[in-house]
């Protein structure tokens, strides 16, 4: 086998790998599962532009009642096992450092599965998550998944930004950049 034949075979192999990847992605069963959110089966009734559904939870920083606060609210529904939620903690911590005096932050657990992906979720699991990812903002364990059932948009994390008029100004799932969330918070603070 000479050099030219080997070069041709190599080119064909590379082309085949790339073509197979494109075909599998756009035609195969994996298409749609590649995204920046961990899938959740729940889509709550919360909608952007509509009044935020009422909820109250006990957080690591005290009791939080949506109806009682006069500040805009940054709400995250997360799962401790979700890698996107784990990464998003660093983004939310930066926002919390910047806006903690002007915005109420609350993150609520929204899955019945724990951090290892197999055990049941628990208060301890959420507290371990807080410690492991050095989370600074208030976090709540919601055993009945009430907030998740109201706000989840089909993926973890789901983040809602609620204005002082109690309308939802932003609602999205997946990893959201610092810049996008910063702009959204600035918008409700105007």
């Amino acid at each position: 086998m000479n050099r030219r034949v080997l070069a041709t075979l190599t080119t064909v192999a590379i082309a085949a790998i790339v073509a197979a990847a494109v075909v599998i992605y756009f035609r195969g069963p994996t298409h749609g599962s590649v995204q920046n959110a961990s899938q959740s089966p729940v889509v709550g009734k919360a909608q952007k532009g509509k009044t935020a559904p009422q909820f109250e939870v006990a957080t690591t920083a005290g009791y939080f009642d949506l109806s009682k606060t006069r500040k805009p609210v940054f709400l995250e529904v997360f799962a401790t096992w979700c890698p996107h939620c784990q990464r998003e903690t660093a983004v939310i911590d930066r926002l919390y450092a910047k806006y903690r005096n002007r915005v109420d932050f609350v993150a609520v657990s929204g899955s019945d599965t724990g951090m290892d992906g197999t055990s049941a979720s628990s208060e301890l699991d959420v507290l371990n998550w807080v410690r492991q990812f050095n989370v600074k903002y208030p976090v709540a364990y919601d055993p009945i998944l009430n907030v998740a059932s109201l706000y989840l948009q089909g993926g973890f994390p789901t983040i809602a930004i609620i204005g002082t008029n109690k309308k939802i100004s932003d609602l999205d799932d997946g990893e959201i950049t610092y810049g996008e969330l910063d702009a959204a918070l600035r918008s409700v603070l105007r």
Partner: protein
Amino acid sequence: MLLLRILLGGLLLAAGALKAGDPSSLAASIAAFRLLPAAIVGPLALALPYLELMLGAYLIVGLFTRVAATLAAFEFLIYAAAIASAVVRRIPAGCGCFGPKDTAIADWPHVAFDLALAAASGVVAYAAPGALAVDRVLRRV
């Protein structure tokens, strides 16, 4: 030079093999860098492990050594740039260098490591093909 070529090839083989079984996790790792649109991330996650396996095998046997080493150098440079951009933008992206179980966070030491690998690949490309290479046999044919 032979040792360097085999080390680089072995590294690429290991990286490709560890990534090959879990394209969804690899896609999540790539997407976390927020540099590429989803339509590219998906196919890239499916193809990259096998391209790395090919590159590694070619380096180890010394086939098309100069081209393979040059491509490896470019690959490591791209990794270094992606990781550096994540560090600068303060994105807590996982390195994902050796598959889904590699939970190391992208940081400056990873950038330095990839730059060192790029430099080593450049040296291999410059001195190609080196000893015990299929390229030497093909030249005689």
